[in-house]
């Protein structure tokens, strides 16, 4: 039954891959990649159960954190075209700073 769940999650990942390939905007693709990352965490955990080695959960835990950092880094890069910008909201311009980009 765990193997069936694993296959179901993999089918979901393949369907999301379609969205990555044909997504009309950049944000659709990032969204699909983010969800694929979440599912990868689950796949790693389930794979550990199927193979009888739950030690895989360590890797899944690290992947959770890396997935978050990846999404934020991609978004930051496409907003500022650089990683060298501090992510601090300036109080004088209020919300949505960096409108229009640098």
């Amino acid at each position, binding site marked *: 039954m765990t193997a069936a769940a694993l296959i179901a999650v993999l089918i979901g990942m393949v369907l999301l891959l379609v969205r990555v390939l044909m997504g009309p905007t950049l944000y659709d693709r990032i969204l699909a990649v983010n969800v694929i990352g979440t599912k990868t965490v689950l796949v790693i955990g389930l794979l550990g159960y199927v193979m009888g080695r739950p030690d895989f959960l360590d890797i899944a*835990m690290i992947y959770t954190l890396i997935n978050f950092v990846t999404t934020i880094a991609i978004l930051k890069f496409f907003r500022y075209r650089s990683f060298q910008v501090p992510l601090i909201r300036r109080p004088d311009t209020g919300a*949505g700073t960096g409108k229009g980009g640098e």
Partner: protein
Amino acid sequence: MAYFLGLLAALVAFWLGNSGEYKPLMLGFGGASVLLTMILAYRLDIIDREGAPYVRLPQLMKYYPWLAVEVAKSNWVVIRACLRADLDITPTLAKIKTIGKTDLARVTFGNSITMTPGTVTVEIDGDKLLVHGLYESNTEPEGFLEMDKRCAAACDPKEGHT
């Protein structure tokens, strides 16, 4: 100092729960890594009220089960919308005012809205939130009142909420 000890306890519990090896050598390595993390956290200057919110932990523990029930309820709605043969959704944008005073209450409220399927916080500006919803019926400001009240009760300091 209390925050320092709280971070120390959390790190030690995290290490012990994840390692499973309790030989002296391994415990020594664990102690060294905890110490290194503490030094890094001190250098980054993140040991403050936001870094260790243990004071409000009991109130948050009361809030999250309620949120889980809400998430389950709205999940059902979105699953039905996904699988229905004709796609009858009415995406809506709504502006919502929050009664939360502190940043933590506002962040928890926005995070709860985002976590609930069917509604996403698009923008937070001061005490006004811009919310995008899948149906018109679940973006009415009255629907968020109870969540807002519970967030404020869980996160705001006692003198702040009347």
